Every structure is written in structure tokens, then in C-alpha cells.
């Protein structure tokens, strides 16, 4: 099974569009703020509560590394976070909490791949046995479905002309209003 060619599979790989992940994270943040932290994710997943938790990381559009990291009790409401967007930075990481029925998940979503980091699962079975593994994978797959459902909602919104006509002005205004309130 030798003869590894590192470029061999690249033709089949899904294109990576760095701006999409950053925009998705911003949309999640704005959606949580403008929807009362509640979303209907469809028939299968139902209504969930979601909110930005204790970490936001930003980068400048032309650099991969984090340029500003805001942590603490409520970074989503901090003036530094809005100032980062107003200053042209884009999101690189966002710590998200999702509550579905009685289960609460926490995850740091990392652009550009939307890797899942520091995932905290509402695990019932503990230990390192078989049952605990199945429980963790069941919960991981539920979290993956939730993130995918949010991304699908974002994709539907992002691919219409309404995005440029209504959503972008609304996000700009949300950032701007907060900045004005803070200045005042």
C-alpha cells in the first residue's frame, strides 16, 4: 500500500472557502443576539437555544493567526468584540453553547475548517468502557447534526440576494448601534 502521492486526493476534496466559515461565525453571533438565542432547526432537531459563550477570536482578513482573543463572562457583549468587527477583523473562533431538550453542548468552532475544539458533551455514561464510547459518539453525532443544521440555515440565507440587500445592512447596523451605545 505504498506510493503515497500527497496531491492525489486533492481533486476530490471539497473546496475550502475561508470567508464562508468566518461569515458563518459572525452570522451565528448576530442570529443569537437578534433572535433571543432561539432557533428552529426543522422537524428532526426542533427548537434549540444557542448563545455565544466565553470566547471569541479574530484575525485580520489576510492572516491566519488570531489577532485578538476576547474571553471572559460575556465577550459577545463586550465593546472590544464589536470594535474588532468595526475595525475590519473577521472571526476565527467562536465558543458556542447549544441546548436541545435537556442536553447542553459547548464547542469552540474554528475557521476555516469549522473544526470542533474543546467539545463538552452532556455525557450520561462515564468511564472508558464500550458503553461510554457509544454514548460519546451518539452525542458527538448529535452535535455535528446541530452545527450542520445551523450551517444549512446560514447557507440558505447567504445564497440569496436578500443577504446583500437586507442581512448585511442589518449586521452592520447591529455592530454600529452597539458601538454608538457604547460611545454614548
Amino acid at each position, binding site marked *: *500500500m505504498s506510493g*503515497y502521492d*500527497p496531491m*492525489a*486526493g486533492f481533486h*476530490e*476534496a*471539497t*473546496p*475550502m*472557502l475561508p*470567508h*464562508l*466559515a468566518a*461569515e*458563518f461565525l*459572525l452570522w451565528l453571533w448576530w442570529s443569537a443576539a437578534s433572535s433571543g438565542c432561539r432557533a428552529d432547526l426543522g422537524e428532526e432537531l426542533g427548537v434549540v437555544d444557542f448563545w455565544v459563550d466565553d470566547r471569541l477570536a479574530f484575525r485580520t*482578513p489576510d492572516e491566519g493567526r488570531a489577532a485578538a482573543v476576547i474571553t471572559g463572562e460575556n465577550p459577545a457583549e463586550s465593546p472590544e468584540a464589536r470594535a474588532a*468587527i*468595526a*475595525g*475590519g477583523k*473577521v472571526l476565527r473562533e467562536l465558543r458556542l453553547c447549544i441546548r436541545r431538550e435537556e442536553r447542553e453542548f459547548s464547542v469552540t468552532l*474554528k475557521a*476555516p*475548517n*469549522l*473544526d*470542533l*475544539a*474543546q*467539545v*463538552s458533551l452532556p455525557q450520561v455514561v*462515564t*468511564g*472508558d468502557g*464500550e458503553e*461510554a*464510547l*457509544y454514548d*460519546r*459518539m451518539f452525542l*458527538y453525532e448529535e452535535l*455535528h447534526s446541530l*452545527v*450542520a443544521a445551523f*450551517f*444549512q440555515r446560514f*447557507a*440558505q440565507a*447567504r*445564497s440569496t440576494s436578500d443577504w*446583500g440587500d437586507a442581512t*448585511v445592512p442589518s*449586521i*452592520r*447596523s447591529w*455592530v*454600529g448601534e452597539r*458601538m454608538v451605545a457604547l460611545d454614548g
Partner: protein
Amino acid sequence: MGILSGALTVRRYRVDGDVPDGFRDSYADALRSYAFQDKSSPTPGEELAGWVEIHNLLDTGFEDLNSWLYDRYAIFSLRVDKRVVPAKLFRAHLEKRVAAWCQEQQRQRCPASVRGELKELLEFELLQRTLPRVSVHEVIWNVTDGWLLFHNLSDRANERFIKLFFETFGLQPQPEAPLDLLGSDATLAEALLTTGGMDYRPEGS
């Protein structure tokens, strides 16, 4: 550990390709063929990599299916060892060796060629006594649904993992991109492919 307990930090991959009949035996053989093997004469800075069982990084037999195959999930770890002699300690030992040579030969200075030989010998000796720096990254592979999680986000570790996985199983894991979250909705994915980044700064910023 992250796969079995604690916080998960993972990159997700698609693994396309048919699962062969009797994959339990063939995958066990493949894991054994590319299992981690220590080297009796390590070279400085060299990295050794191979698969180990998830419950103990010293176990490389993959003989007991119950230790690495749980229903549809294959779980194992990538172990990477690197042996490096601490630079300050190395320099200190070398100076002692050079001084001892000068005294023995009753010379003021040690020629560069001799210094080079002493250096090489010392490096070999100290490497034998140095414990490796060990990294272990867990893998969980849902064999029937064709996806896996690699428990590390660094580019270097992921590149090494992809290469060894391909060598071991003949399958190319593809890192999932955000567009993969759309599943089979090709129309939506196509629409997003034509988008470019937008400016979200409020007016007047």
C-alpha cells in the same frame, strides 16, 4: 485522552472507499504492519511514527479485536516519538571531552576534525540515554459510515496522519470543509462557491 473521555478537539475526515469483506482481519494486519516500532540506534532529531492501541501506547499488537474495534468504530492512536539531546547539556559534555582530549594529547587546541569526531560519538552516546518526546493522537473511525475524527488540529500532525493512514489502509482521508455540512445539497453548495467575502463594518467605521 479525548476520544474516550474529556474534551474533544477534532478534525473530521471523510473516508471514501469500499470496506472489504473480512475487514476486521485485514485492518488488524494493516495496523500491525504500520504499528509503532522503536529503534535501537536513533538518529538525532529523527521522528518515528506508527499506530498504537488506544488504551496503552506500549501495546502495538492489535490482536484482541475487543481492544480496538467497537461495533462500527475502529479506535487507535498515532504515536510520534522524537529524540533530541538537550542542547545545553550536550555543549557542556562536549567541552569536557575536548578539554580531556587536549590534556591527554598535551595540546593547546583541539583540531576541528577531532572535535567533529568527539561530537558525533557524544551525540550517539547521549541519544541512547535520552528518553523520547512522545506525542499520541487518537483516531476514531466509523468504518461503516465512512468518516473519522483525528484528535489534533495542527497541520503537521494532520499531514503525518493522512500519509500514514493512506499507507496503512490504501484509503485517502479527506478533511471535511464547511460545504460538506450541506450533505447532498449540490445546488446550495454551488451557490456558495460563487460568493466572495463581504464587508461587515458599519457605515463610517
